[in-house]
């Protein structure tokens, strides 16, 4: 009998095993964002604090993080101190208060400190929809020209920032320097 035919089932089994093993460590709830490489969507929305009207043009000029949050989002509370620390260290962060009650958002910012240079009030979720947001927290990385360059889904903790995201942000900052 042909020897190689006898090895075939074992080879197939090993191939399957490799794929399934890899699958164990993938996170199925992390979707690749369709928005990466596209310009940040146009919007005209009020701000959370004060009665300013914000548009896409307000986000341009500096590379920044755009953090989608809400007071209803429990993991946003976990993330918030980390964002505060980043803001203190000079990271530009804009907020999108997504499908929230504005009074709650104001209370939250007063209580936990405000890391956002601008905070967009997206009460009906229209900007969130155009951003392809499907939960919170989600954080977009935009460059100085307002292109979405990367997206992180889930809580940014110090480890994630150090190991994954700091380098991405730094690359955008370096790129913006003349």
């Amino acid at each position: 009998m042909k020897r190689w035919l006898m090895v075939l089932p074992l080879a197939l089994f090993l191939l399957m095993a490799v794929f399934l093993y890899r699958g164990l460590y993938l996170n199925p709830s992390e979707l690749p964002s369709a928005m990466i490489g596209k310009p940040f969507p146009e919007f005209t929305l009020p701000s959370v604090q004060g009665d300013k009207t914000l548009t896409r043009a307000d986000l341009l000029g500096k590379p920044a993080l755009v953090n989608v949050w809400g007071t209803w989002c429990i993991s946003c509370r976990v993330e918030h101190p980390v964002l505060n620390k980043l803001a203190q260290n000079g990271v530009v962060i804009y907020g999108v208060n997504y499908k929230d009650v504005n009074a709650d958002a104001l209370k939250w910012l007063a209580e936990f400190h405000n890391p956002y240079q601008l905070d967009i009030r997206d009460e009906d979720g229209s900007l969130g929809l155009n951003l392809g947001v499907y939960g919170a927290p989600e954080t977009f990385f935009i460059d100085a020209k307002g292109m979405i360059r990367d997206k992180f889904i889930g809580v940014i903790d110090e480890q994630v920032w150090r190991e994954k995201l700091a380098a991405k942000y730094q690359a955008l900052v370096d790129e913006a320097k003349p």
Partner: protein
Amino acid sequence: MKRWLAAAVLGLSLVGVAQAAIDTYEFANDGERERFRELTKELRCPKCQNQDIADSNAPIAADLRKEIFRMLGEGKDNQQIIDFMVDRYGEFVRYNPALSSKTALLWFGPAGLLLGGFVIIAVIVRRRRVQRTAAPDTLSVEERQRLDQLLDKTKHD
């Protein structure tokens, strides 16, 4: 017994109620209602992964249903609505993904495996048939003589 039966019927009748998300939308005509049903069945909820947005109670699914209803009202066709969703949420939201180099394996993989199975069966069947037809004549002259000897021997024993 009768009581059990009544309980079972009642329980089963609740199943349908529990599964479908309920919205109240006023459609302009039946065609639009039908298209809404089709689209919400074909699009997948980005948050809940294995539900279509017609079935899901997640807030994002409700938003997307509202958005589809709005776009239907604006007279957009199905393709435009699907493109709108894919632009934002990626190919993931389609239960019926477009054919591309990335999805080719999904589209043709099962048929390919089936075809492979048929080829293997065909090869096995043919090999057996060849063996069977060849079998009566496979003994050489010496082998036949030896067989006769052995048969004779057993007869004499």
